[in-house]
């Protein structure tokens, strides 16, 4: 898939980077190296979880997203706000202030992603009741988790919930609605307001769909800054919100799992916990659980690095907003689409990111070479060489990523 190649989830502000190796040591997929004192990302390995952005003590890592001005490329602009956006505002009386604010910023229409989320909950219930999927079923709404499974837990692919993410469903319905209104297709621009770089990547690459469903992905943080002054000016907001608590809950961990309607569920958040749970699923020790929701960020999407508010605060605010919403406001029957509408259009495809296939002997020879080299090293994973572990250093040499005569700085002292 060529559209993956040019997409970079995080960028480096080289001047700010001190080469402190914090991000390199904590990257869950060992996708970072420090070369000549500066961090660099191996994009083929990056799953967009945002950990490095979160952890960098010098704010040198910047998550990628589209500048707000991209909306001006289209005549008819539709905003798709993620439910976590509502958790960013202090003393928000009514979410319609946010939605009205978006319209004043230039959007012609708003379509809450929470509406898509509700439909996804209903579709999940249908799927869990009728189709045979391997238990435990693993959620796929967090693109960082989905990509992690494809990269490191391929044998769990059969457990994945093969349904579109809420934003995909919202994007499809919003665009179709505008077309029905008679707006020329080429004039319609659909923009997601995202909590994280993982969603930016997944939407731009069109993971799980035949072609990308949105025309741009904006950051909650940037939109928030523009919204605040605009919202202050609103006297009477338009009644624009059309979602329920079911959709709102998706902003935080366990919201999706509760919506799946199975009492035997598990919800884990934070990339390290996600990895622990994936290992347990692999071991077969969670076979008595029906549904597993996994979010790369602590607390779920309110913890995404493109938010402005602390995730726990945002979560508390969302809880406070619940009483203002109906339980659910979007049902499958109302929308009237066939069930296929909610399914993946194609298998997620990260092929331009994957390594060429080697035969077993080749794999073994490499393993042997890596192990032989590894056994000569201190195995202290100190990181001085610029690789996150002694093993990663060996892999880089054997895979020709760094010169064969690269030195372990501990041994060389």
């Amino acid at each position, binding site marked *: 898939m060529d559209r993956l190649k040019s997409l970079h989830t995080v960028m480096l502000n080289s001047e700010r980077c001190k080469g402190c190796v914090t991000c390199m040591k904590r990257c869950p997929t060992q996708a970072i190296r420090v070369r000549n004192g500066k961090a660099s990302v191996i994009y083929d390995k990056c799953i967009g979880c945002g950990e490095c952005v979160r952890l960098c003590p010098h704010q040198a890592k910047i998550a990628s997203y589209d500048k707000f001005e991209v909306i001006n490329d289209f005549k008819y602009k539709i905003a798709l706000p993620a439910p976590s956006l509502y958790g960013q505002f202090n003393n928000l009386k009514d979410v319609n202030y946010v939605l009205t604010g978006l319209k004043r910023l230039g959007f012609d229409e708003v379509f809450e992603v929470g509406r898509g989320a509700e439909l996804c909950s209903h579709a999940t219930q249908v799927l869990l009741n009728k189709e045979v999927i391997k238990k435990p079923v693993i959620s796929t709404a967090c693109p960082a988790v989905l990509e992690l499974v494809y990269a490191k837990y*391929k044998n769990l692919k059969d457990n994945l919930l093969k349904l579109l993410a809420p934003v995909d469903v919202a994007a499809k319905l919003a665009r179709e609605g505008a077309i029905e209104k008679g707006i020329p297709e080429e004039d319609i621009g659909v923009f997601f307001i995202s909590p994280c770089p993982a969603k930016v990547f997944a939407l731009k690459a069109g993971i799980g769909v035949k072609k990308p469903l949105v025309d741009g992905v904006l950051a909650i943080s940037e939109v928030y800054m523009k919204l605040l002054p605009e919202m202050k000016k609103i006297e009477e907001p338009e009644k624009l919100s059309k979602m329920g608590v079911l959709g709102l809950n998706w902003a935080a961990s366990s919201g999706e799992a509760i919506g799946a309607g199975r009492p035997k569920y598990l919800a884990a958040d934070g990339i390290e916990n996600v990895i622990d749970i994936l290992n347990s699923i692999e071991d077969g020790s969670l076979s008595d659980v029906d549904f597993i929701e996994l979010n790369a960020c602590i607390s779920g999407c309110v913890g995404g690095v493109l938010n402005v508010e602390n995730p726990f605060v945002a979560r508390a605010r969302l809880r406070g907003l619940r009483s203002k919403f109906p339980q659910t406001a979007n049902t499958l029957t109302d929308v009237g689409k066939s069930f296929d509408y909610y399914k993946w259009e194609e298998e997620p495809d990260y092929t331009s990111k994957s390594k060429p296939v080697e035969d077993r002997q080749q*794999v073994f020879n490499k393993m042997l070479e890596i192990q032989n080299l590894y056994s000569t090293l201190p195995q202290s994973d100190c990181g001085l060489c610029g690789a996150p572990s002694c093993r990663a250093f060996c892999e880089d040499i054997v895979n020709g990523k760094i010169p064969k005569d690269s030195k372990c700085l501990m041994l060389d002292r």
Partner: protein
Amino acid sequence: MEKIHLEFDVDGRNFVSAGTATAKVKACLKEMGINPDDVKRVAIAMYEGEINMVIHANGGKALVDIYVDKVVVKLIDTGKGIADINLAMKPGYSTASDDIRQLGFGAGMGLPNMKKHSDECIVESEVGKGTTVTLITNLH
């Protein structure tokens, strides 16, 4: 034949950490890109053997050799040994004390499981000298 050799110590005093050698081997095999189903089989069989070393012997060593087509795990201890290997292999046979049973071990299923989850399971033992269990798993 060329092989990758790994060695791990199994601590004989610590029930709580029993299984750590297996966890390390599992992580290594996974990192090396070995088929997850094979990794799982190796881990299940090795775990039972490791637990046996902790509860029936005083710990020991785990030697792991990875070949292009198989993984050989040797669990070597210098514990009390097994008098009647055929009897020990029978499902349900156990000499575990009540204390050990309280911890959830002692169903007499360890050795039968090791046999089931490996392609070859060889138990060699001498009373008073120790036990060596060799587990061979073919790779797919």
